[in-house]
């Protein structure tokens, strides 16, 4: 048996996550993911007004804010057979698009970059060479003064002895291979992105009142009719332009520059064959044409049509009462009664194991890009082929940690570009005098509905059952449940667990390489975990064992 390492807490994520791996011959031989918190929002929803559900579920996560609220109103609209007006669809698309722009920038710089960028090593960089490197990788003019100021700022920070969020990082680890100038360039953009993201989030506030947790959705449409005017559209457009310029001139060039030093990661952190995308961004009100297409990949790049009836959740290796794998409409959340044990040979997580036609499927940016590519979507094909060519890699390299991180960048471009068209559509509509933002409706006595969307972290589905105008049952299957779920009855592991197998580990006391693959999935555990057992209070060791 190999050496076991446990990392808890996993930081730079949303939520409370524990990862355990077994290492043999400096490689990960086996891996287990475990969620550590429960709040029980589905249980709170029973008996409440279906119109209120979106406010509750939005609090599943403040990082992937808005997306649960959107799924929720879609589920109720599906149940009550409501078709929302064109303007409501476009405004929802714009807010959803803004969420992707914001979330992916923050993920790259503030949650993922420090896995690749040695911030302390940046102090050794030459600002003149850094400016040259920056101009080389991006069309944006760069000055040595800018990088010198950043370096001095970091130097003052480090010399103060108060390293704050950078304290106890794995600085100097042998797996960091960027030259000092690339480290300084990324560090400068880390700080720049902090400022940019605050601005980008204003897109939500323009039509949504605030961010995080925008408050403008209602079952039947959106409430911000008063903001549907050319001043507000222009205000949104200006922020969109500035964000898009940052994506095109900073985020994507940095991604490509950093990737070019870590090409070996195009062969690490893959191992998954099945991929699932619900797709999103309806281009018309009947929701038939999607900017991000839907589909399921069993193997390779062959895409099958999506069939949500094939979704089940397995609880064999999670702390729930034994039950047959079931579809979310029939889904139950029954924690086992009595003491539970964290046992990697038996049950070890509160995350359920969702399966599509019995298979563990990866969801998220990589799944969406692969589905679009496999379907021959021209934009996806152009972007993917250009990226692979630039890095000198083949399509095999897509199925990896590098591929996952690159896919996130590529879809940021696709969605950002689509947003321009929606702004134009809004302008055309109001110039024609169409300001309809809400469809009247009545609550049925009994109904069932499902709300699907594809959100920054992957395929998200909410299922609601209404009886006597109240919520009878509410279940959601979220991206991090798909990705971070445990093994199932057949012993088949979840996507993240599989991805970790084979990862090289230079130093088991500083498992930087594990963080790279974990973060490439952008985990959100507050969303993923549904129920934890009340009858245990075990404590576990957190050190390297």
């Amino acid at each position, binding site marked *: 048996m190999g050496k076991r390492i446990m990392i808890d807490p996993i930081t730079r994520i949303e939520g409370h996550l524990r990862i355990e791996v077994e290492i043999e011959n400096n490689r990960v031989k086996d891996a287990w993911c475990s969620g550590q918190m429960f709040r029980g929002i589905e249980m709170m929803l029973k008996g409440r007004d279906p119109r209120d559900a979106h406010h509750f579920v939005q609090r599943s996560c403040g990082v992937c804010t808005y997306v649960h609220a959107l799924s929720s109103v879609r589920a109720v609209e599906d149940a009550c057979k409501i078709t929302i007006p064109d303007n409501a669809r476009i405004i929802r698309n714009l807010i959803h698009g803004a969420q992707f722009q914001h979330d992916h920038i923050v993920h790259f710089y503030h949650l993922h970059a420090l896995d690749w960028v040695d911030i302390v090593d940046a102090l050794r960089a030459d600002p003149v060479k850094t400016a040259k490197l920056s101009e080389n990788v991006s069309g944006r003019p760069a000055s040595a003064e800018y990088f010198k100021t950043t370096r001095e700022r970091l130097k003052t920070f480090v010399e103060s002895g108060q390293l704050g969020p950078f304290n106890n*990082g794995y600085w100097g680890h042998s797996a960091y291979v960027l030259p000092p100038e690339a480290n300084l360039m990324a560090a400068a953009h880390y700080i720049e992105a902090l400022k940019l993201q605050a601005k980008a989030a204003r897109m939500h506030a323009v039509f949504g009142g605030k961010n995080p947790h925008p408050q403008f959705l209602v079952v039947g449409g959106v409430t911000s009719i008063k903001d549907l005017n050319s001043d507000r559209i222009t205000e949104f457009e200006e922020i969109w332009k500035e964000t898009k310029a940052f994506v095109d001139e900073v985020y994507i060039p940095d991604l490509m520059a950093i990737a070019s030093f870590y090409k070996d990661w195009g062969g690490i952190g893959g191992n998954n064959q099945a991929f699932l995308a619900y797709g999103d961004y309806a281009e018309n009100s009947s929701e038939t044409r999607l900017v991000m297409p839907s589909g399921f990949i069993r193997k390779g790049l062959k895409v099958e049509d999506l069939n949500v009836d094939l979704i089940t959740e397995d609880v064999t290796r999670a702390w729930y009462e034994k039950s047959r794998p079931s579809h979310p409409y029939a889904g139950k959340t029954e924690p086992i009664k009595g003491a539970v044990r964290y046992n990697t040979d038996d049950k070890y997580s509160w995350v359920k194991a969702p399966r599509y036609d019995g298979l563990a499927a990866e969801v998220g940016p990589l799944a969406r890009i692969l589905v679009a590519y496999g379907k021959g979507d021209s934009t996806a094909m152009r972007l993917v082929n250009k990226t692979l060519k630039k890095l000198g890699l083949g399509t095999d390299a897509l199925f990896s940690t590098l591929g996952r991180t690159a896919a996130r960048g590529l879809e940021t471009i696709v969605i950002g570009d689509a947003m321009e068209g929606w702004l134009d559509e809004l302008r055309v509509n109001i110039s024609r005098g169409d300001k309809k933002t809400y469809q009247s409706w009545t609550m049925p006595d009994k109904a069932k509905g499902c709300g699907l969307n594809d959100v920054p972290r992957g395929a998200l589905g909410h299922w609601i059952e209404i009886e006597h105008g109240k919520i009878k049952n509410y279940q959601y299957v979220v991206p991090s449940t798909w990705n971070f779920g445990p093994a199932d009855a057949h012993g088949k592991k979840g996507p993240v667990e599989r991805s970790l197998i084979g990862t090289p580990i230079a130093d088991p006391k500083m498992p930087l390489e594990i*963080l790279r693959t974990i973060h490439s999935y952008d985990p959100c555990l507050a969303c993923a975990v549904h129920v934890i057992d009340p*009858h245990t209070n075990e404590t576990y060791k957190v050190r390297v064992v």
Partner: protein
Amino acid sequence: MQKTEEKEFYDRLEKKGVTRRDFLKYCTGLAASMGISATGVVQVANAIERAASGPRPPVVWLHFGECTGCSEAFLRTPNVGAIILETISVEYHETIMAAAGHQAEKSLHEAVEAHKGKFICIVEGSIATSYNGAYGKVGGRTFLEIARAVIPKAAATIALGTCAAYGGIPAAAPNPGGYKGVTDAIGVSTINLPGCPPNPLNLLSTIVKYLNKEAIELDEYGRPLFAFAETVHDRCPRLKHFENDEFVEEFGSKEAELGYCLYNLGCKGPETYNNCPTAKFNEGTSFPIQAGHPCIGCSEPGFWDTMTPFYEEI
């Protein structure tokens, strides 16, 4: 400030990547949150400048039963980079810190011991208390154990957001985990900055006042009076429509477009104490009522149960 002093001050700010325009905008926002006039801006500027000149005050930020929305709100503060790098020292914050696993635990332990009695503790999320706190753990310790070990050692504790202040959504009926706000869970008094999410300007104003050693007057729910003395209704830009009996009866209607009062659609502004209409969110861009949505009362204790159904009058 004298002209030369002022120039030097802005030069120093420029070096930190903050332009004069950014800074003035930022201070005006803070002034709006603190309910002071624009002349108070100098006072704010001095406090930040003073804070930036010596060792930065250490902050330990704990995440319990939460959604990270309060951290995200904090990250929406303009010039948040300058706050993190030059104003305060964020010793522990799971969402942004580089360290993970036992290196992260080490950072927490070191910060609490080295700055015992001196650090500001900011808490996000509520604390599971049923079954010895089994519903939530970090590094193998329950939220309850961590709270008891860390919070009593802080100089002051800010309960940021409705969850940390009063329990929030994890405490909504049937509250399966027995979640409670910090004071209820461990009996330590806190400065409460509720809201779902809280307004980051209210957090900054509290920190500035604390650094200025100003007394912070609190209401009966532990909320600073500078932000929570009046209701949303009192400060609402739609108040005149309420007084004129001009109400929106349906979303998307002509009355909605005219910006009439949302009371009949369930607005909880009259029962909710907060400064949303004046401080606004995201650099003054908007707030829910401006976006045509009724207030849901998110800064009041127990609002998930006492203010629902949200779209009905209570």
